[in-house]
């Protein structure tokens, strides 16, 4: 008994020691980073902050490179969290990071009182939802079904769908079916029969819901559907789209355009869409864009926004 207690105590002591050692070390790294930026000359607000987001945000054209190019914003440090998911939100909330790359439709922005920094220079281009589909699978029937969905998708509607899934913990597939029937799109038929499709999604709930909506609607019209959900970053699933591992994906016009064409300059919804249609490789086509938008955004906590009087991304480049 005595021996066991002793052992447990020793283990606990070692654990806390080791953890504090690791913790101490990581904080040292971050202070090291900020001293580094301080010695660079002028101290911008951004250089005092730690930015968090997905790995690819470091290299993506509208990620760190875009922020630097468009606003001259260079953060003190970048911590890889996840793609607008729980790690990013809880890190921002708990102060492990000061600014985050989140999606504008994310209900947790409102729930936590986060502040979306405005993007006057359209670093993040218009982000209308658009189905990207492999040409071989885009029969008229399929096109008609998907475009019918696109016509009904609104930004607010998207937010509501997300709230149902993320806050009320409803099942994405059920939410998708409900939305289809609410919008009179749940009719069964055979306009897509004979088509075999693999629907993919990125690993964030909104994209999963959209994939489910497409998949359910096509299934109801007789298509044979496979889903590959929660794949990961665009860099990863786009390769799948191109080589035919996936046939259909709910995309965002701005980011997909910039992903394909690093020099794209279009920012307005119509310009972006037009550029995208041209830029897509020959085996992929874009169907109708929806009115609904869900853009990446730089988000900070209310406290940070107040402290540095932040309203737009450009404010981050000010000295403070």
């Amino acid at each position: 008994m005595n021996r066991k207690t002793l052992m447990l105590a020793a283990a606990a002591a070692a654990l806390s020691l080791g953890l504090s050692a690791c913790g101490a070390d990581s904080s040292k790294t971050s202070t090291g980073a900020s001293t580094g930026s301080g010695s660079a000359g002028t101290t911008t607000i951004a250089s005092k902050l730690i930015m968090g987001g997905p790995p690819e945000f470091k290299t993506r054209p509208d990620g760190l490179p875009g922020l630097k190019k468009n606003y001259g914003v260079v953060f003190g440090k970048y911590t890889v969290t996840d793609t607008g998911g729980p790690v990013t939100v809880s890190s921002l909330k708990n102060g492990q990071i000061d600014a985050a790359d989140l999606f504008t439709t994310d209900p947790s922005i409102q729930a936590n009182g986060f502040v979306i920094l405005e993007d006057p220079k359209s670093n993040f281009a218009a982000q209308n939802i658009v189905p990207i589909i492999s040409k071989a699978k885009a029969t008229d029937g399929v096109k008609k079904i998907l475009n019918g969905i696109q016509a009904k998708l609104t930004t607010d509607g998207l937010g509501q769908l997300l709230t149902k899934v993320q806050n009320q913990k409803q099942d994405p597939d059920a939410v998708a079916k409900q939305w289809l029937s609410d919008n009179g799109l749940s009719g069964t038929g055979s306009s897509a029969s004979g088509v075999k499709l693999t629907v993919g999604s990125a690993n964030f709930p909104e994209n999963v819901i959209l994939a489910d909506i497409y998949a359910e609607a096509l299934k109801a019209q007789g298509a044979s559907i496979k889903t590959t959900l929660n794949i990961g970053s665009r860099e990863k699933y786009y390769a799948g789209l191109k080589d035919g591992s996936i046939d259909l994906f709910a995309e965002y016009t701005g980011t997909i355009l910039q992903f394909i064409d690093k020099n794209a300059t279009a920012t307005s919804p119509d310009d972006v869409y037009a550029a995208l249609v041209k830029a897509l490789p020959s085996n992929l086509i874009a169907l109708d864009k929806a009115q609904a938008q869900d853009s990446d955004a730089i988000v900070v906590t209310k406290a940070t926004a107040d402290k540095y009087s932040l309203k737009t991304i450009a404010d981050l480049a000010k000295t403070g």
Partner: protein
Amino acid sequence: MTALATSSSSSPLHFWGYFMDHRSTDLSWLWSHTWLSVVPVVIGLLVALPLGWLARRYRFVYPPLISLTGLIYTIPSIALFVLIPPLFGLKSLDPKQVPIALTLYSIALLVRVVADGLASVSEDTVQAATAIGFKPLGRFFRVELPIAVPVITAGLRVALVANVSIVAVSGTIGMSNLGQLFTLGFQNSTNGPYYPPIVLGIVLCVLLALVLDRIVIILNILLTPWRKAVRS
């Protein structure tokens, strides 16, 4: 925690209700998870048998073979999954990358187990078998292999249990299996934890591992009836 209070459906114990609500999806994930765990071990064993025999028969083959297979095991699974498509000329998200990676792991583990299992057959037994007229191949299948069964099945158990865990990792890169439940639960934990899919995933993975383990144990008992006396 707040979500726990407001919505009973996100309580960890709600995993069964969650399962009932999403039965068809969960079962299809469980099914593919099972296949992904089992098939690579079976293929791995089929490949490992001749290799293990070779390592036993020609002693000089043993060290390099064991080092090589040991090396495979040090590659992190997530890296191996992504390495497979370019190496095997597959499409980037081809679901075959998971079983291929797992087969490699299984071979790595089982070659050594088979070789050492065969080595556990006593020299006297081998000589006696030869003396009563077994030819090498017949001796291998009817004497050496049966005697090596306990050691080989011990290796199979380890390989199967490890595979169940590794398959779940592939769920984080979009493959359809129980690993999806973890991604799903995690992604929906932005506003308060969403336990049911996570807990369900763990429960199903553990159950699957235990059931597969039990099957191998039973298989071992059936294949080695002469050990019954010892086991009592």
